[in-house]
């Protein structure tokens, strides 16, 4: 596998910070009552989205979940459109019709967050089928959680992908919880990667708090997929640092206590140290980076706030292409 170059490492680091800061700001806005609906934040899990998506171009595709902001940011969606969507504005990626759980942009290869657990998995297989039929070299990555691996859609989607050797990589972000419910309450197998055996495809577990490790494992799987060697299942072991949704104290089943341990492995400071050690980044560059991101966030939030809201005339459009 290609080693992690300085350039890629910095990009991954930046992506992780971009995700983290997006989530932090969104949470603040949500708690201030500015955002409707509800939010599922991925703080703590940034290394997975960043490490995987570092391999993807615009023509590659992803499907995501209810906890999808990180995947979107990593895949290149702009803060403006994302915040505008959270603010339910016409300038949002979905014109305010989708919200946090349905952000999508076909131009940038984002086939949607998804409010249905596991719902994106067969769709990812289908997108990969489309790509295969079109003779393209692009790949699809399907992100989902440990909880999702118990849905029938997981089984059917992966089986089809394996059967047709579709160019898709299934990335399970195993944070050990499905809503409040710990893994022991929802499945017996400890290693979700083992489920790959049911489809005769490679299954690899990786430390989801280590973006370099994720990058490497994802690189192998994506290369396989691009070469026409079929799908893989990656299990990235990670942890969300907050409750299931913003406002959930996350105290059921000792999730909060587990988080204390995991926070010591927060991927952002850890990867920051790794970069510093190699002198790939220093305090000044770090500050610049963070400043730039914060200014972008300010601008995007401002843009969103000032954007027009959809009105009644918009309610009944976009249902059909033509009627």
């Amino acid at each position, binding site marked *: 596998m290609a080693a992690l170059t300085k350039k890629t490492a910095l990009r991954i680091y930046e992506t992780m910070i971009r995700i983290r800061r997006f989530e932090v700001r969104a949470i603040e806005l949500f708690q201030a009552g500015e955002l*409707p609906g509800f939010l599922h934040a991925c703080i703590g899990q940034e290394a997975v989205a960043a490490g995987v998506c570092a391999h993807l171009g615009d023509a590659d595709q992803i499907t995501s979940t209810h906890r999808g902001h990180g995947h979107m940011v990593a895949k290149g969606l702009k803060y403006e459109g994302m915040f505008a969507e959270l603010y339910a504005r016409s300038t949002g990626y979905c014109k305010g019709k989708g919200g946090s759980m*349905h952000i999508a942009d076909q131009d940038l290869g984002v086939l949607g967050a998804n409010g249905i657990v596991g719902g994106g998995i067969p769709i990812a297989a289908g997108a990969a089928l489309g790509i295969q039929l079109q003779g393209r070299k692009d790949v699809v990555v399907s992100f989902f959680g440990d*909880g999702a691996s118990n849905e029938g859609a997981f089984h059917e989607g992966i089986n089809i992908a394996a059967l047709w050797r579709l160019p898709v990589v299934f990335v399970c972000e195993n944070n050990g919880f499905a809503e409040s*419910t710990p893994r022991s*309450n929802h499945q017996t197998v400890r290693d979700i990667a083992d489920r790959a055996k049911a489809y005769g495809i490679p299954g690899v577990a990786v430390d989801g708090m280590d973006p370099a490790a994720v990058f490497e494992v994802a690189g192998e799987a994506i290369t396989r997929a691009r070469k026409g060697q079929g799908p893989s299942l990656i299990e990235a072991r990670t942890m969300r640092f907050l409750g299931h949704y913003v406002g959930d104290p996350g105290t059921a089943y000792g999730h909060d206590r587990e988080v204390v341990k995991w926070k010591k492995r927060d991927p952002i400071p850890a990867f920051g140290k790794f970069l510093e050690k190699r002198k790939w980044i220093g305090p000044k560059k770090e500050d610049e980076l963070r400043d730039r991101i914060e200014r972008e966030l300010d601008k995007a939030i401002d843009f969103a706030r000032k954007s027009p809201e959809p009105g009644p005339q918009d309610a009944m459009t976009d249902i059909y292409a033509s009627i």
Partner: protein
Amino acid sequence: MREILYRDAIIEALDEEMRRDESVFLLGEDIAEFGGSYKTTVGLFEKYGKERVRNTPISEQGIVGATLGAALMGMRPVAELMYIDFTGVAMDQIVNQVAKVRYMFGGKAKTALVLRTQGGAGRSSAAQHAQSLEAWFVHVPGLKVVMPSTAHDAKGLLKSAVRDDDPVMFIEHKLLYLEKGPVPEEDYTIPLGVAEVKREGRDITIVATSSMVGKSLAAADELEAEGISCEVVDPRTLFPLDRETILNSVKKTGRCLITHEAVQRCGWGAEIAATLAREAFDYLDAPIERVCGMETPVPFAPKLESHVIPDKDDVIAGVRAVISGL
């Protein structure tokens, strides 16, 4: 009478039935220690333990299948499907298995089970978390369908549903959970298949379900001031349906408006309108109006959402239209 939350009425009903009958048990996602995502099972895990209040994997086909299988063994399971939108992943088990085994097996099958779920819009939850899909289930022979609009009805109907020997889809409403209403301390049940006239009136009958009942009562209050007297009928059970009560009301008032949150096209209101238009043909002084969800997926933006979901003002406008001859 004391007033309690609709969601607490649910808890009380489950609690009382579990105490009364050992064969009653609960299963669903996050219903145990966490108490359910809408807090409708709080305290029951502590009281009845993990055997009878079971967290499940995120596997709705599995949940409904497990429910049916346990019922076939003589248990009385009550499953929670977190959102009615998620019945999509469990439709085969609900429709092809649960609803049909009794008939397919020639009557020899125990199917005393309840599938609790909740629907409706109003929380900016967008297209996959805000649907009202009751018409699907009413269309399926073998199922009973209940949609309580008050804490009182929720408790009394849920207790009946648990005791019923047929599969019951019990559809709550996410916005009603935090509404309070009078609920007696003593044990009571409300039979399935009995509508309630929630308000008497002379000029028009409003048939309303779930969240639309409260909005219709509010509309009736306002219209009263204009001198329009509305009768509000809540069927409570969509199947079996108390046609009698609805029909009698319409025969009395000569006018009818039907309102629900679900999309109008092929919604439950169509069935009621079709039935009334036929059965009360000679009594109707004006066409029957429907005030229903607009024909779109539910949008995220609060302004759009409240636009496509009918509210009190839509009911008022509808009533005025009927009264003035559309």
